[in-house]
């Protein structure tokens, strides 16, 4: 449903924002070279009516945040608007220069940033910052603005709304700061708010509350919004319409329901179908490959226990997913299994033998059979080594392969990860994010391991790329008969890949078993919260989840 860019609009009409044929360029300064111009947004148009919400979606580098800021006439860093017009309430705000823009910013249009923790001045009380725009533009007196702010704090579900404004940034949690920032944007009663990934940095169980608060606030105040995110499920909860962007160009633009239920363009289809990857669970075999027996691990002299009495098992050739939010101890558990961090108590059995607790005491064969893949493929590879060296080193080290034999095997592995031998002499810096992660997978496979620990291997990647990696891992599992211990915070990834699941919360396993039974009712309280917090790509999910949540809360 493409909207034709209209001609001149009557200011009395319901049209609030009209961005036409926008082109945004940036100057990059490569060290030791002449500055170069890069096009960030190329000929994108959009319109927004009063009180409506438009979602802007795309992967990193799609230009969605740039578009959002352009609606305020603002370019981050060296970015500048080099073509097109931005009409707000019927006026072209780019025409009047920076003085006109300053009148619009903070009064008619406000901004909510991804990281509120960085977006607040650490040296000022929150209240002073929340009312600043309203005072600056003469919209309200200090007393009125503060009263309004407190009302907004209350509406957004902040604790102690009367006094929270007296605090400083570092005295308030991340989820709360995001709510305070929303209140700050609402305080001058603008016509439009730009939400720039407001919940992306939050844990999933925190995200749902903030999302619901934002949605309620939008509905109750009648403000219009541009909602920018990379998560289609999130945006489909709040927006009336969605625009899909890629590489600075518009891909598809339509009603939310149409985009998620009947996408037209291939890229949108790929985005929507990312979640549809399903893996039929294997029945647990009798023997287990890895078993973690009652492991407790702690950091520092104070013995802060980050993993407590954990027991889980991985069957040969199968996948155990360990799910948890930040601070649940899931990555620490991986460090214990690999021997990087000897546990306080408990033991680890692998392939019928007990593994030494510290890395130094493990045999070369123990190390070979247990490989690891990291979240940030960028830093998991030595930037000074070629792909050939990176994949070839385990072959040399474990199997004594040299020269042509080694190169032949590296080429084979490169074919296996669907990249091809042409990459042999490339350096990591010359690869894309997805390619880097594939090289790390090949390096792990080169050791012919029985188990690979995958630590959030897809969470730094864009959804379509991540999906490709998951498919590859599933395919390789069949070919190589390798088991995975898959650590993630993302339940969709779990559904896509796991045979069994362990849910971790504050260092303990709160639920463990085959995928089908872990994901079946009745749930324990935390798993219930976790599962119900993961956004589903369906309209109305947020309301249902929130009412369930509040019903559960009032019941308890």
């Amino acid at each position, binding site marked *: 449903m493409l909207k034709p860019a209209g001609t001149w609009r009557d200011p009395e009409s319901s049209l609030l924002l009209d961005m036409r044929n926008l082109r945004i360029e940036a100057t990059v300064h490569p060290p030791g070279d002449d500055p170069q111009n890069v096009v960030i947004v190329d000929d994108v148009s959009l319109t927004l009516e009063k009180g409506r919400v438009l979602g802007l979606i795309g992967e990193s580098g799609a230009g969605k945040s740039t578009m959002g800021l352009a609606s305020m006439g603002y370019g981050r860093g060296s970015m500048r608007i080099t073509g097109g017009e931005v009409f707000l309430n019927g006026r072209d705000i780019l025409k009047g220069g920076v003085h006109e823009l300053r009148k619009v910013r903070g009064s008619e249009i406000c901004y909510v940033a991804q990281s509120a923790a960085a977006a607040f*001045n650490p040296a000022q009380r929150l209240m002073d*910052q929340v009312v600043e725009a309203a005072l600056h533009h003469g919209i309200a007196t200090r007393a009125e603005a503060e009263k309004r702010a407190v009302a907004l704090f209350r509406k957004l579900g902040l604790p102690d709304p009367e006094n929270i404004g007296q605090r400083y940034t570092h005295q308030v949690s991340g989820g709360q700061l995001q709510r305070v920032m929303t209140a700050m944007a609402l305080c001058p009663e603008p016509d439009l708010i730009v939400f720039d990934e407001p919940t992306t940095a939050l844990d999933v169980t925190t995200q749902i509350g903030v999302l619901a608060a934002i949605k309620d606030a939008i509905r109750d105040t009648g403000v219009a919004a541009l909602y920018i995110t990379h998560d289609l499920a999130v945006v489909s909860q709040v927006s009336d319409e969605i625009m899909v962007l890629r590489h600075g160009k518009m891909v598809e633009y339509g009603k939310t329901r149409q985009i998620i239920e009947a996408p037209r363009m291939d890229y949108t289809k790929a985005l929507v179908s990312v979640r549809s990857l399903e893996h039929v669970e294997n029945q647990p075999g009798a023997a287990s490959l890895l078993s973690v027996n009652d492991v407790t691990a702690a950091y520092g002299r104070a013995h802060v226990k980050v993993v407590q009495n954990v027991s889980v098992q991985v069957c040969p050739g199968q996948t155990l997913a360990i799910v948890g939010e930040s601070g649940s101890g899931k990555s620490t558990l991986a460090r214990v299994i690999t021997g990087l961090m000897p546990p306080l108590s408990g033991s680890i059995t692998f392939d019928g033998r007990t593994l030494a607790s510290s890395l130094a005491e493990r045999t070369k064969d123990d190390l070979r059979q247990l490989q690891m893949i990291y979240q940030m493929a960028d830093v998991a590879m030595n930037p000074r080594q070629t792909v050939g060296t990176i994949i070839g080193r385990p072959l040399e080290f474990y199997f004594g392969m040299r020269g042509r034999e080694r190169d032949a095997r590296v080429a084979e592995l490169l074919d296996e990860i669907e990249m091809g031998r042409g990459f042999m002499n490339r350096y990591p810096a010359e690869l894309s994010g997805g390619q880097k992660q594939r090289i790390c997978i090949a390096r792990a496979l080169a050791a012919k391991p029985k188990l690979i620990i995958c630590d959030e291997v897809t969470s730094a990647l864009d959804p379509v790329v991540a999906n490709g990696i998951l498919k590859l891992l599933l395919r390789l599992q069949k070919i190589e008969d390798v088991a995975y211990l898959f650590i993630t915070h993302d339940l969709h990834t779990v559904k896509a890949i796991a045979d069994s699941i362990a849910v971790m919360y504050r260092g303990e396993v709160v639920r463990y078993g085959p995928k089908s039974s872990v994901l079946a009712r009745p749930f324990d309280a935390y798993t219930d919260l976790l599962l119900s917090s993961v956004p589903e790509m369906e309209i109305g999910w947020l309301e249902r989840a929130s009412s369930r949540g509040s019903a559960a809360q009032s019941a308890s």
Partner: protein
Amino acid sequence: MGTSLANLVAQRIAFGILLLFAVSVLIFAGTQILPGDVAASILGQSATPQALANLREELGLNDPAIVRYFHWLGGVLTGDLGTALSSRQDIASSLGPRLWNTLFLAFWAAVVAVPLAIILGLLAVRYRNGPVDKTISGLALASTSLPEFFIGYLLVFLFAVKLQWFPSLSTVYDGMPFLERMKAIALPASALTLVVLAHMMRMTRAAILNVMQSAYIETAELKGLKPLQIIRRHAFPNAVAPIINVVMLNLAFLIVGVVVVEVIFVYPGMGQYLVDHVSKRDVPVVQAVGLIFAAVYIGLNMIADIAAILVNPRLRHPK
């Protein structure tokens, strides 16, 4: 606020004092326990054994090093810096006026250099990547590579010899009228200013740039605030600590530059006093002056840290 902040400051002061003691050990050790025998190096190779023995006796070299250290330290703590070997004069009383001269010179250099560096740093940030910034940064890079005496003699050559505006030697004496004294120190103070200016400016630029690139500055811009309001309410309060830090580090740097500059202009300060007595191998003087320089240096660093503690909102308003 209150106790925890006071605690931190007290801790930092205690650490400074501890460090000063450690440095006094280091300076003492540097002159007493190093392989060269002090008496032998003072008298040279032609010294008779009798003369050596006498000097060793006089210097107390026959006592164990620890005894000598505490003897020396006890003296320092009670204001007795000992007697100069070369002139037989009391070190503390000859140091007094020289210390004052040096502080006078350093003070006026700082009065010019600090505001100038901050203004240039701000200008460089304001016109970042433009010709102003590039010129300032280029000159700064060049002048950090210049030796102090190049700047000093260039100034002398231009302003004392060619233009004859100022004297080439900075003679000062007791009871000198203020304006004459200012004229006498004009060149050395300018040289010192130029020595620290580039460094201070580059660091100020970096510190301000760091603050100006923070997300909260963007937030302020998106509220429609004017540049001056942004600087006053959001940039300045957060830039104070890094700028104080820059200033203090460079004042410490200035203290070192003063040694060479004083020699260039034959200015009767601590630096010249130190250099003279290093040549004469007058160990008690060298120890005393070295310790005073080190104390000033440590003190300035301590002030920088304390300022950073005092303006940090996390520490001022603990959870």
